[in-house]
Structure formats: C-alpha cells, structure tokens
C-alpha cells in the first residue's frame, strides 16, 4: 500500500485509451443533441403571444403606410450594406499612425488552429505550433489591419506550450504575466484582446456575408471579476455594432458565470476595463474566413479606439 502503487494505478487509468470516445460517436451524439434541442425550443408555448404582438405591429405599420403615404410611395426598408462601405469613409482613415500603442493583442491558447490549414480531418486535433497556421496569425492579421486604419497595435506571439513543465490548466496564469507586463510598459493602451477560436462545429462558426463564408465573432465575458460591468459594456458596444452591420456575425455575448472563490477564472479581464476574450471562428474555418471576420472587426475597433 505504497504511494507508488496508488500513483501507478491512477496513471494507468488516466492514460487509458478507453477514456477517449471515438470521433464517430462524438459527432453522432452532437447531432442527436442538436436535433433534440431544436425540437424542444419549437415546442415552447410562446406562440400565441408572439403571433398577436407581431400581427399588431404589422397592422399598425400597414395603417401608417396607407395614411401617410397613401400606399403610393415604396418603402425603402432594405438598407443594404456592402462589406466595408459603411465605416471606411475616406475621411475616417488617418494615415499617420500615432506612436502610442492603443491596442494589445495576445493569445492564451496560442496553438489553437484550423482543420483546413493543417490538412487533417478531426477538429479535436486542430492544434499547431506553427504561427502561420494557428490563431497567432489571426491576431497578427488583426494588428496589421488596425495599423492600416491608423491604430498602433502591439501583438504578443508567445508559445506557452513550449515552456518546460507546461500544464494547459496554467494557460491563463502564463498569459496573465504577458498582459500585466504589456499594461505596465504601455500606459496608453485602451483595449486588450485575447484572441481565440471557438470549438464549435462549422455551421455554428460560419455566416454568409455577400456570398462569402465568414467566421463568427463571439465575445466572452466572465462575471467573476470586479471589472465585469465595464467588460460587459465594452463587449456589448462591439457586439451591437457588428450585429447591426451584419446580423449573425456576432451571434451572442457569451457570459461565463463561475462560483466565487479561488478557482474562479476571470480570463484576465479583471486587469483592465476594456479587456475582452474574443472567439473568431472555429476549428473548421479556414484562415481566409477568419481574416474576413477580422476585416470587419478591425474597422469597428479602430473607430472606437480613435474616438474614445
């Protein structure tokens, strides 16, 4: 009954290949659950209320239309927005990049990568240390776009996993040091972004915009820190702007609630008011789809950074 015995048994079990479910089972179950969730939300008895209020709104619009325009004018409701046009007004582009950095980008899970880039088949294996194929390249592209728009940006390209005795659980502790250092040495920073990709399947991380597949942009906010309200406000501003331009591009703000105490994870958002965790796309998106999302996101970030 030695410590060694206990360790041997536990290690043997933890390393058992049986612990990992087959990919086939994992995706089959995912689909089954989706189907059930969908059926369940359809059954919700909120229809009557919904139909009445919609009907009321429609008839009011109709009455207004008939009385105000006598039905002769056509209502131009469709405000069609083409990629980039709305916010890239030439007068908003400042070509001289100011010297003080305003934005800081880093990657806690820097090896998150993409199935199409790695030429593999399983999303679970989409991890790579190649900075031209992992999420680091998305952060770098964002910084390039921001600089083009006149916002000086710093990017951190640390590879945390290459550190000795790396434990995935400590990722946020490691990236925390990165953020603390950046904030200390650059007091002009206005925004801090931890760029990730999601782990959802492709249909949840892709939207069609003007005929192109574009990766979705999800903001993650943790409620377990003292800057939660400011973070949430910042996330809402970005989310609302993205959604008003391209509905579906930013499906929701993802609120992570955690019990208080030592284990609570704040994603470093307690360090700074405008600090956000952004998930751009998922493992099944290509870098081109990621970059398309960044093109739009960069414009909104640049606007805010310059005006605040």
């Amino acid at each position, binding site marked *: 009954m030695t410590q060694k015995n206990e360790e041997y048994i536990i290690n043997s079990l*933890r390393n058992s290949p049986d612990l990992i479910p087959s990919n086939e089972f994992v995706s089959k179950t995912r689909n089954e*659950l989706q189907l059930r969730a969908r059926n369940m939300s359809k059954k919700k008895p909120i229809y009557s209320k919904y139909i009445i209020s919609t009907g009321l709104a429609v008839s009011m619009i109709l009455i207004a239309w008939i009385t105000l325009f006598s039905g002769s004018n056509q209502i131009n409701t469709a405000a069609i927005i083409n990629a980039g046009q709305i916010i890239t007004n030439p007068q908003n582009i400042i070509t001289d990049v100011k010297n003080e950095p305003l934005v800081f980008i880093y990657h806690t899970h820097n090896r998150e990568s993409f199935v199409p880039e790695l030429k593999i088949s399983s999303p679970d294996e989409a991890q790579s240390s190649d900075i031209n194929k992992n999420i680091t390249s998305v952060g770098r592209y964002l910084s390039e776009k921001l600089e083009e728009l006149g916002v000086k940006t710093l990017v951190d390209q640390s590879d945390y996993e290459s550190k000795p005795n790396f434990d995935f659980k400590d990722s946020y502790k490691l990236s925390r040091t990165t953020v603390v250092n950046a904030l200390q040495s650059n007091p002009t920073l206005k925004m801090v972004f931890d760029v990730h990709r999601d782990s959802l399947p492709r249909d949840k991380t892709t939207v069609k915009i003007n005929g192109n597949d574009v990766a979705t942009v999800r903001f993650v906010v943790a409620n377990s820190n003292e800057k939660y309200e400011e973070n949430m406000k910042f996330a809402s501003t970005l989310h609302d702007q993205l959604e008003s331009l391209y509905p579906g591009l930013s499906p929701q703000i*993802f*609120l992570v609630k955690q019990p208080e105490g030592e284990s609570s994870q704040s994603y470093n958002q307690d360090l700074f008011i405008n600090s956000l965790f952004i998930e751009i796309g998922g493992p099944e998106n290509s870098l081109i789809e990621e970059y398309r999302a960044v093109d739009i996101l960069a414009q909104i970030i640049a606007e805010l950074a310059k005006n605040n």
Partner: protein
Amino acid sequence: METGSISYTLLKDGRLDVELTIDYIYEEHYKTVYGFLVFFTGNISDAEDLTQEVFIQVIKSITNFNRAFQLRTWILSIAKHVAIDHYRRRKFYTLLNDNFFVNMVAKIGLPQENLEIKETNKIIQESLAKLKPNYRTVFILRAINELSIKETASILKCSESKVKVDYHRALAMLQKKLTKSMKGVMDI
C-alpha cells in the same frame, strides 16, 4: 474554452438559447462524462448509450438549472444517477457475467514489449469496474475526473469525510484485487 466553468448562452430577450448552450456544454463536458461512464460500466457501448442519455437529461432540465451551482457538479450528478440506474437494471441478468471490457478494442497497435503493460492496464480497469458502485464512483470522480473532495461530496450528497474514507477503501480493494490477479504479471 476552459473546462470547469459555467457557460450558458442567452438569447437577446434573456431566454436561454438551449441549442447553443447544449453545444457548449457538450463540447466542454463530453470527455469528463464519457470517461466517468466508461470506467463505471466497464464497456464502451454502454458508456456511449449512457453518455447520450446524460446529455439528453441535461437538455430537458437546463432551463431549471440553478446557476449558483457549478455546472460540472450538476452534470456529473446526472451521470451518477444514470450510471446507478443502469447498474440496477443490469444487475438482474448480468450478475454472474464477467464480460467486462470485452468490447474494448485497443485503438493504437502496441508493440510487443508493451503487451505486458497493456495487460496490466486492462486488469486495473476490470478490477475497477468490479468494485461496488459507490466505491467505484468515489474512486473515478477523485482519481480520474480529478475532482476535489468537496465537489465529490456534493455530487454524492454525502459528507467530505465519507468521501475520504470511501476513497481509501476503494483504493485498498483495488490494490487487493490487483495483487491477486497480477501474480506473475508484475510486482506490485
């Protein structure tokens, strides 16, 4: 996303988006749930069926989930219920059946010299699946799912000291079973 956090997605009107939420929950927790069940049941096809059952129950009751609790604790309590139910149903007709792990096929071809280790690992898994259900549960939650004593106690709805005692008993029984079945296989 980091595992162990509580994650849920709200629609704009504040209602829960079940479809997206279950996606996140599933991605974050399927490995934990499956791992627990594969060691509890001792066979892959049961573990697959029960894993699906656990998440279906999660969908059904997610809107009632009390957000003051940790999500993982709640999901594992469901998994424990599902596992115990399954055990009771099966007990009647497989009491004398020792076919644990018969369906398990090694996923990676191992070289000849590893066969001995593989055999030992198989014996450990078999012995674990033969422990009494309550010992099995405590041992899996603590040793494999790496839960704290506190979290294990709240899943099993018992005191923390009972968790400690049961864990040590489970370990002792496991070691005893191993010594018996591994004479000649390895020196333990």
